[in-house]
């Protein structure tokens, strides 16, 4: 390409010269400040006396809420405790149904009235659900996943987990639906809601675990509340979006038919938006399962607890088996809910067939349950999977890690050392020495460039918050760790995504791999990673990359597949080779979509911080973790907000860039 042409494109892309000047000035100022750090230390490192004691205010507020806040008839804590008390009933009922059986009395005097659902009944019932929602394939998948739980001895714990999911998901989805409807109806409420949702999704859960414990008591209910806070936001977002997307003529038709506002909502809008709403429910399920490990730290028990304890005792194999059980449970629930979401709507019939014809599966399942419940009292093998038939691969996993460790450690060490010295350490040095004021200015300029003054004000002030609350260095280490991880994840994810977009078989394999990586609790691979790479930033990076690579792959593949076929045909007609078509046509057009994937990768990387704190990083995640172990509410929340702000800054900048790019490409 000739020089003038490229300059034209440069200008067309809208980079006015003043931005180039702004960046240059900023660079010079940064260097000057850095050199003059002896004379002007306040500009290089934010001075301690200027710290805002925000975290103490938050802690005091919390103390006041817990101890003194009186709502008149009752105190705030009494209110939250009553809510906890109310939530405990359904949770306990579900626990009894799936895990423990119903019994009367407490402790040793307890006698069982009705046993829990027999394992056979549950497997067949779920398989029937699969059959009715889609077909034999799904039924086999669901049955296989549940059978794994029984055969590998994970049944008891899995049922505890399932019981809490069964209660948490409807609560989360219901609350999300109502909030979403409210946001749909009132624009003002939506404006309040959206930033709140951002915070709920990005503030690390450890940050608000302590207040939740104080307010809701110690145990499964608190764990459930934390799960709901984390898992509800996508439902709210999806609801608002889905209701807005209902075609106008459908709404018009409802109006003409004389629907009241309420009828219009529940009889017209919500049913038409059902497929999208189901996607939201699906998200709630997946996120709730992501929370299983953390919930087990505050008394939820179940599979998460098994993963945690076996890994803490270095029973790697047991940890892997329990972790896979979570994955399989997640995949089974995910596929089932997706199948229900995509089920073709049944044609309306004039005559309603009799009940048993309409619901053959429901009746079969109920009958089966009754029969197996009765059979279970005679044949123990029907009630509980016989222990003698359980198998375990635990030893194999431990041996595998040992084998890799003994035979390949030196090679791995060499790779690691190279990356440390050539990538990680230089980036870390750079980010921790850049003057804070230069970083804040850079973020603001980028905001102005992509979204004008409003975005500049937002990103600049969020960055300033990190300095003002005294979390600057830790924030920069966070940016470094996430930045490097996102870079590596993109370098892996984008090529894999391209490959998957061009080859259907690869696509299917990749799908399974990334689904597993996303639902397998990261703790499962964190400990083997530490064994092979030792404690430190490198191990943290691997864990982050493993978790965060999925969206990079997914969005790349999706973006490339969405490129209109005519364009590719045109390119082929113009004599482009396959490679040229990819790089000159498909890739540029898919770039906005790919960037959205990178954006998601950043979000996931940030959400992994709390886990990487467990391998000894010194970032905001560690700060949140320390606050948790010291039960210091304010410290945790302020550090958590810093994480959220990093996420919001990058999200807003990338989204602004994507919007602009799409407009330029004529995609919107």
């Amino acid at each position, binding site marked *: 390409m000739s020089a003038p042409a490229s300059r034209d494109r440069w200008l067309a892309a809208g980079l006015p010269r003043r931005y180039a000047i702004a960046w240059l000035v900023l660079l010079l100022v940064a260097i000057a400040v850095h050199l003059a750090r002896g004379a002007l230390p306040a500009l290089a490192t934010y001075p301690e006396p200027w710290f805002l004691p925000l975290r103490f205010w938050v802690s005091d507020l919390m103390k006041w809420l817990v101890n003194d806040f009186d709502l008149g*008839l*009752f105190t705030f804590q*009494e*209110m939250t405790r*009553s809510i906890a*008390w*109310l939530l405990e009933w359904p949770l306990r009922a579900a626990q009894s149904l799936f895990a423990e059986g119903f019994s*009367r*009395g*407490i*402790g*040793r*005097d307890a006698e069982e009235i009705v046993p829990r659902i027999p394992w056979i009944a549950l497997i067949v019932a779920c398989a029937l659900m699969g059959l009715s929602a889609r077909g034999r394939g799904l039924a086999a998948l669901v049955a296989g996943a549940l059978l794994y739980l029984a055969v590998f001895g994970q049944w008891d714990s899995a049922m505890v987990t399932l019981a809490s999911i069964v209660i948490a998901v409807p609560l989360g989805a219901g609350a999300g639906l109502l909030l979403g409807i409210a946001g749909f109806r009132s624009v003002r409420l939506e404006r309040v809601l959206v930033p709140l949702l951002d915070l709920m999704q990005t503030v690390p859960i450890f940050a608000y*675990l*302590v207040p939740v*414990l*104080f307010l809701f*008591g*110690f*145990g499964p209910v608190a764990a459930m509340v934390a799960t709901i806070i984390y898992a509800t936001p996508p439902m709210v977002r999806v609801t608002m979006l889905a209701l807005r997307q209902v075609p106008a003529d459908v709404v018009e038709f409802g109006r003409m038919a004389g629907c009241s506002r309420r009828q219009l909502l529940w009889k017209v809008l919500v049913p038409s938006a059902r497929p999208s709403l189901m996607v939201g429910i699906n998200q709630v399920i997946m996120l709730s399962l992501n929370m299983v490990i953390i919930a*087990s*730290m*505050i*008394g*939820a*028990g179940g599979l998460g*607890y098994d993963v*945690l*304890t076996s890994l*803490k*005792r*270095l029973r790697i194999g047991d940890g892997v088996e329990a972790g896979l059980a979570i994955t399989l449970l997640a995949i089974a629930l995910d596929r089932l809910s997706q199948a229900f979401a995509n089920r073709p709507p049944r044609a309306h019939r004039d005559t309603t067939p009799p009940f048993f014809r309409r619901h053959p599966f429901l009746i079969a399942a109920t009958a089966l349950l009754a029969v197996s419940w009765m059979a279970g009292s005679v044949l123990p093998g029907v009630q509980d999977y016989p222990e003698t038939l359980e198998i375990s691969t635990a030893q194999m996993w431990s041996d595998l890690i*040992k084998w890799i*460790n*003994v035979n390949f*450690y030196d090679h791995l060490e060499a790779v690691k*050392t190279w990356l*440390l010295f050539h990538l990680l350490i230089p980036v870390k040095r750079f980010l921790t020495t850049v003057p804070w004021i230069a970083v804040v200015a850079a973020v603001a300029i980028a905001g102005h460039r992509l979204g004008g003054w409003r975005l500049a004000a937002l990103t600049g002030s969020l960055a300033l918050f990190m300095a003002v609350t005294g979390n600057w260095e830790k924030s920069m280490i966070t940016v470094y760790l996430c930045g490097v991880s996102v870079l590596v994840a993109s370098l892996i994810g984008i090529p894999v995504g391209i490959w998957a977009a061009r080859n259907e078989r690869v696509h299917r394999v990749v799908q399974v791999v990334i689904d597993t990586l996303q639902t397998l609790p990261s703790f499962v691979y*964190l*400990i*083997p990673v*530490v*064994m092979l790479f*030792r*404690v*430190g930033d490198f191990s943290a990076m691997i864990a982050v990359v493993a978790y965060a690579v999925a969206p990079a792959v997914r969005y790349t593949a999706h973006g490339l597949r969405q490129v209109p076929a005519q364009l590719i045909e045109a390119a082929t007609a113009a004599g482009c080779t396959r490679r040229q078509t990819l790089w000159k046509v498909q890739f540029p057009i898919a770039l906005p979509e790919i960037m959205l994937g990178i954006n998601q990768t950043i979000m996931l990387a940030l959400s992994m911080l709390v886990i*990487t*704190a*467990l*391998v*000894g*990083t*010194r970032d905001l995640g*560690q700060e949140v*973790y*320390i606050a*948790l*172990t*010291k*039960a210091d509410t304010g410290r945790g929340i302020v550090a958590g907000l810093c994480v959220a702000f990093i996420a919001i800054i990058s999200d807003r900048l990338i989204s602004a860039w994507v919007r602009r790019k799409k407009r330029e490409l004529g995609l919107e």
Partner: protein
Amino acid sequence: MKTCAKSLATAVLAAAALAVPPAVAAVESEDPIKLTIHDWTGQYITTNIMGAVLEEMGYNVEYVQADYIAQFAGLEAGDLHVAMEMWETTGKDAMEASLATGKTVDLGETGMVAIEEWWYPMYMKEKCPGLPDWNALNECAEAFATPETHPKGRYLGGPVTWGGYDDERADALGLDYEVVHAGTDAALFAELESAMQREAPILLWIYTPHWAPIKYEGEWVDFPRYTDECYKDPSWGMNPDKAYDCGKPRGWIKKVGWKDGEAKWPKAYQAVRNFTISNQEMGEMVGQVDLDGRSVDEVVADWMTANKDRWMAWTM
């Protein structure tokens, strides 16, 4: 709403109380005593022994999984009742802060002594014959080095939350070592396991009672003995300008409980206070579980039969 919920609760409780037949032995309250369980085997065993004893006394017992430090929120609120192991070395600050609220109560020592110190596997002695004397550490710094820390040695400390003053110790004693902090207990022992598999150099924070020093052969570094002055008074010890020029303190392991539980289950609390066990016994039981693969229930049941007189005495 409050009164409504409360009266409803009372009604339900009253109905439940009517339905429950009286227990074998008369105890002050049928409500389950909630004992907290953490994630290390020793604590699991102590708690299960205590739980078994309380059940023998006729109490109802419930085990609740809880984080070692986060549990104080539950103990203060009465959601949890007894925690069996609070270590002076790692939990003292949190425990004192909690006791100061007046909502928890110190239930005395368990009789076990916590030891924490720098530790190395036996095979490192060949590479560094001067050990366990701490003066030998500097001569062997390179033997303990990794590419990132070279030429300094690498010492893997506990999670930052454990405290322990290892950075200060290395500085005060002039050790050519870089202190790296593991984020959790699990990461600490993962590195140990990995090094042991390869017989690779490692120097790290180990504590006992724990399975690691039972499973693996190794020794603690011999630092100048800890005294209170060493931590407080810089002039004490070999470095006249700095504190922490000595080893780590050894400490008690205590039981902690919810204050109001004392009035609710007085005899049970007395039994908890009476509970004692030795490092030796605990080490053996932990070994049986973690190394021989026996279940905690079996090990606890064995202990209960073998030591009937002892625990009977606690219940008096």
